[in-house]
């Protein structure tokens, strides 16, 4: 499972990261973006315009499939179990729902070494603690190069807390994900 967190600047950055991925991509991708609850379906549509992989909002208990992109629905936490998503309306965590930390933490638990966490542009510190949990669980963590980020606060906060396995510009991340996902697929599901 690849899990991507992004906040301020996400709508311009996510197409750079997800757009180049092509059908047959061997892992499922969950994306958590802070957004206004009224933004509704528009982010799905915007991403789909740029992506060859199918994009949809995760539905409660939906089994995830490789080669698909799942977006956390507005106003819900997205949690990952071994084969499916769970949603929750528990309180916002650090003012965010969906919270990147909450999602990353569940991925760390459910996927262990097969978890790949990616943290992109953003104006707060969400995701840093979650990345650390993925790291502790044996997963791989990727952080957008802060100078490359539309807003460097979020990736910088993560780098201050945890040593990333890879620090890359948004444009360099897709090729990296292709390699990491292929490696993860070879070592079998975690």
């Amino acid at each position, binding site marked *: 499972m690849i899990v991507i967190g992004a906040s301020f600047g996400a709508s311009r950055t996510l197409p750079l990261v997800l757009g180049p991925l092509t059908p047959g991509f061997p892992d499922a991708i969950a994306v958590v973006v802070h957004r206004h609850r009224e933004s509704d379906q528009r982010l799905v549509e915007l991403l789909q315009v740029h992506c060859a992989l199918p994009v949809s909002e995760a539905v*409660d*208990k*939906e089994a995830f499939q490789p080669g698909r992109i799942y977006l956390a629905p507005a106003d819900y936490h997205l949690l990952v179990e071994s084969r499916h998503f769970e949603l929750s309306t*528990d309180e916002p965590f650090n003012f965010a729902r969906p919270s990147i930390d909450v999602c990353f933490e569940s991925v760390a638990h459910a996927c262990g070494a097969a978890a790949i966490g990616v943290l992109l542009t953003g104006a707060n510190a969400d995701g840093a603690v979650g990345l650390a949990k993925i790291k502790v669980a044996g997963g791989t963590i990727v952080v957008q190069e802060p100078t490359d980020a539309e807003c460097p606060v979020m990736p910088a906060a993560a780098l201050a807390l945890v040593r990333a396995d890879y620090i890359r510009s948004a444009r360099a991340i897709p090729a990296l994900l292709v390699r990491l996902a292929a490696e993860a697929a070879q070592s079998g599901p975690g």
Partner: protein
Amino acid sequence: MRDADLGGLFQAVFDRYGWDFRSYAHASLRRRVERHLHREKLPGLAELRAAVLADPAAMERLFAAITVHVSEMFRDPDFYRAFRERVVPVLSTYPYLRFWVAGASTGEEVYSLAILLHETELYARSRIYATDINDTVLQQAKSGIFPLGSMKDYVRNYQAAGGLHSFGEYYSADSEFAVFRPFLRQNVVFASHNLAGDASFNEFHVIFCRNVMIYFDRTLQNRVHELFFNSLLTLGYLGLGRSESIRFSPHEDDYEAVARGQRLFRKLR
């Protein structure tokens, strides 16, 4: 926290107290228990298990940590708008109406429904059954007292949902709390009911169960779908949360969608 230990805790809780959380959704449950450990300053599951088995008061606190769900009035305004536009005209042909808000928690959904029925002149012939597994939150719901700070969001939701009046007409406020007007609970029956074990208790024209089943695993969800199917009159309506689906439920084919993009379904047979 190992899954097996979490399962062990809830098996022990079931054996000792009869509360069945074994079919609650794992990731959410784990998160709730972790928060609870933190709040109770307990080092781990073994200690929590020991405390809960030794002390019913500790069980009550764990029960609260697991069963309190957060909601808001007119959450997903589009849902209420669709209900007002598509369902209310049909309901107005019935002489008497029974609603069930299952998993009513602190009552936000109940008051939203009462207000909507009031504005569409259905309230006088309606009875709303508001149930929850947790009596404490039901008492809170019954009191009609909500934090004043939440009203700003609720006003916006209410307006977006197609509300006809000024939202402020429905409560009186002091510096901290909004107290909702008593007529909004005059036709409401607050009652304890456990979706994980209790049977159907009436036949309803409408059932709302929004963002409650997300905390259940598939098996328990299917059980609850069975319960709702058996509790709805033919051509009755089922309202779910925005990211909940009836796909793969045993009664998927027994409902039709009422409004595109809304989790509002009508029982066909």
